[in-house]
């Protein structure tokens, strides 16, 4: 009897965790999304109204694996399988805001991943072209975007290194895959004055962003750390002194 009870208890305890299913939009998710935008995004200084509206509108939980959909609006990245992640909501917002989009841009995204970033971009700019090399991820993201009836995103399974020459030039390029150099073909597909953005660092660890602006023959790279990096180095770090950044 005792054993039976133990088995029953284990079954009751484990089954809800194992048998997660895709959660559809509910008032709970909507509320969670609004809280996410107000606390994690606006609260950290993101002020672009288009970005805030897009982050409020796109149901992030539909891009997360079902078993983690309850965590979709939390302040951290989410593993989505195959060693991939959906970036932390703040990083998605910061990357989007850093492109300074006005609404009529054509944006190329390298690494569709879950499709969440493409969905956010689609709410703000004219056309989004998104490339994913990994077949499983491509299929999943493509289907999710289709289900959500997002019309202005074109997806393709292929090698992002060479960009999308038929649709070039682009006003903005966003790279969400890990790279050690910026592919020369992508730089060629960037308009003069265009912006290219990519995150640095491991998605689970500290991340900052790099924004490249093409100016004639030169490329200016700006590191955007947002509020995630508190520059508590040097004197600001010394014990007993306030660590309010650089005070030199």
């Amino acid at each position, binding site marked *: 009897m005792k054993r039976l009870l133990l088995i029953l208890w284990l079954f009751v305890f484990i089954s809800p965790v194992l048998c997660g299913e895709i959660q559809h939009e509910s008032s709970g998710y909507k509320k969670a999304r609004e809280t996410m935008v107000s606390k994690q995004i606006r609260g950290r200084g993101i002020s672009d109204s288009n970005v805030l509206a897009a982050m409020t509108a796109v149901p992030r939980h539909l891009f997360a694996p079902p078993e983690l959909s309850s965590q979709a609006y939390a302040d951290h990245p*989410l593993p989505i399988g195959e060693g991939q992640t959906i970036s932390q909501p703040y990083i998605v917002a910061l990357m989007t805001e850093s492109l300074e989009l006005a609404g009529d841009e054509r944006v190329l995204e390298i690494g569709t991943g879950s499709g969440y970033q493409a969905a956010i971009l689609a709410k703000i700019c004219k056309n989004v072209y998104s490339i994913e090399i990994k077949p499983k991820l491509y299929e999943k993201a493509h289907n999710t975007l289709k289900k959500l009836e997002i019309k202005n995103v074109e997806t393709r399974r292929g090698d992002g290194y060479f960009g999308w020459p038929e649709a070039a030039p682009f006003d903005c390029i966003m790279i969400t895959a890990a790279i050690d150099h910026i592919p020369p073909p992508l730089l060629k597909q960037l308009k003069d004055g265009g912006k290219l953005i990519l995150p640095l660092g491991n998605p689970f660890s500290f991340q900052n962003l790099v924004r490249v602006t093409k100016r004639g023959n030169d490329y200016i790279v700006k590191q955007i750390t947002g509020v995630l990096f508190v520059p508590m180095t040097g004197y600001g770090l010394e014990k007993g002194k306030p660590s309010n950044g650089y005070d030199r």
Partner: protein
Amino acid sequence: MIFLAVFLISLSALTFEVLLTRVFSICQWNHLSFMVISIALFGFAASGTFLSLLETRKKHWSKQLAGTGPVKIFAICYTLTAISSFLILNQIPLDYFRLPLEPIQTLYLLAAYITLSLPFFFSGLIIALAYAFWPDRTALIYLAGMGGSALGAVIPVPLLPFLGEGKLIILSALIPLLILPCGKRKLNRKFSPNPKIILLKRICPWLISFVIVWISTVFIFSSDFRVEIKSSPYKALSQILQFPNTEITETHNSLWGRIDKVKSDYIRFAPGLSMKFPGNIPVQSAIFKDGDAPFVLYNFSDSADPTFSRFTLPYAGYLLTPQPEHVLIIQHGGGTGIACALSANAQKITIVESNLQVAKITQKHYKWPVINQNPRVFLAQSAKRFQVIHIDNWGSSIPGAAALNQEYLLTIDAFKEYISHLTEDGILMISRKLLLPPSDALRLWATAYESLISIGLKKPENHIRIIRNWDIYTLIVSFHPFQDDSVIKNFARSNNFDWVYYPDATPDQVNRFNVFDQPYHYQEISRLLNAYQTGNSKTFFNNYLLDVNPQTDGRPFPSRFLKWSRIKDIYKSTGSRLYSLVMSGEIVIAVVFVEAILISTILILLPLFAFAKGSEKIPASHILYFFAVGVGFMFVEIFFIKFYTLLFGDPVISFTIVLASLLIFSAAGGYFSHFIGRRGLRYALIALIVTLIFVFYRIDILIYSILGFTVILRYFIAIGILFPIGFLLGVPFPLGMRYFLKNPVERSYAWAINGCASVLTSIISAQLALCFGISTLAGFATGAYIMVFCSTGKLVKT
């Protein structure tokens, strides 16, 4: 039969432990293999506690277990649990990064932990039973246990290349079944009067063993996916394998790591490549070690030749030494070093690679000789001078994961060696990832600075330059002061690179093309230079957020930056995200240590409370004695494993040789203890303490003096040093078991205490080495044996 059982079970358990550390290194990251050590030793400790507790529940347990029958049953249990725990570990979808997010992951981790500790529990049970019931033969049991363990440490070396980790785990788990035909089993008719039951009891072990062997044979001879070790999906190899038309073309298993060569059209490695590069980079293949740290091999062709590397940061060094006569490339991941040297039309290139398989593959690919040797030993033996020394070392794919890695390529002592091998106009180059907050670049600049000071240069800052792009920096060190910076200035300007440091740099020159909110790296290096010049460098290092002290051979952990005293500030500075800390090897150690303390406390205290009900209490001096013996032995073992890494050039070789040697010599010492009385123990302890004090103060001098010797001589001397220490280490435990303990319960309990002490020491010693240097471990070992000596005062008299 019992000696054979102890020998075989010790052999198998140690092989299993060594192979599990390999499995964890491949599946996850190297620092997680610490979990294996704790799991194994806990299994052992728990077995002692279990037997001690048994006394309080079953009064006749000693009669029931003091035969060969139970030993055989436990051996079968060991085999069964060893194989099944490995298969479970390999199949459960445990994802380290999902642990804080999904409750089920905690269950997976717990399942892995419990199932993996079971085989060690059963092996510990056999050894503990042997000590408990044959006290007069303690020395022989010790000899069998240590001898078996020594052989178990060595077995994977020759077999791993042929079988791989999975198959070898299964094969080695079968070894203890060899005891089944040995010894006559005396059946206790009081407990089993029915002849049918007697027959069943005789047949059952054979039947179970037959089934186990049959299933194992199927696993070993088929290419079953269940025994294949898969890399973490977050590792570089797993990532690249998801690309189309990508395949592993070669795999080499060894104790030195699993080497996979991958062919793909999508490998494009060119760190530090300028955005001004207009062409195509060559097609590449890559070599991965344990699924990470890619080393690329370029397939040069007419359309894609090595000249792409002229647009990379490390090429700056070659502009200062055009067409160098002789280039030395020290390979440790990466791969652009060879392209740079070729592109610069180097007249002669010497490549040194410490991994045998990587050296072979590189040599075959480029059709040049590659020297397979530890670079530090190569330099110690070589009188040659080079115009360029290029260290191709980029680190792990996840920051913090390499924090525990003991590396001798980026220490002050290594820099001195490099500089002494440069020609008059020679330069040293290292390229690494640019991290925020400034850490790696700051440490390497300080390392170069202090090494130049130590060779007598007055103004080291004039010998060091650093340039960067958005995520890579290149450090250039020259033997003579840099006279003209215009070459690098033009190179940086035309490729949109920035200076990080040169003596007359101004803030606007260091933040032009790759703009930070502030030129953090420049500011910190300038501040450190100022601190050096005003004699305040210690204050700088003490006050800095991270540990950026230059590393020495005594504390060679160049990827370790964590300061425990500033953990709160570090957490804040990286966005208050727990994940940033979790991947740090040190945090993993801390978590495992806390967990180890909790479980050890339970394992040690539980029998004490149980004893209080009626039986005689175990004296505190006994507890102290066996605890300190466990602590001391483990400190000595880990000290030599870490210390000899420089000498043997590889932590795995060091681990295998030190472990095998110390265990064999301890076994001899244990056997010798059979012939000495109580008083002999104190003389042995005095001799051991004196030897350890000598080691603590003098061994580094000895090691440096033999570093340049031939391989055989080096190994011979190193093993020779281990002989007296290992021999003396083998005396206290069996003597204590024989003379100080009265009954099987006490002996089981002593076994548990010894196991717990070993667990805690194995974990804490890694942290102590990181914080205070490797030699402190010898100091702690000496302290532990002084405690042993003190606790013997009363015991020897009684």
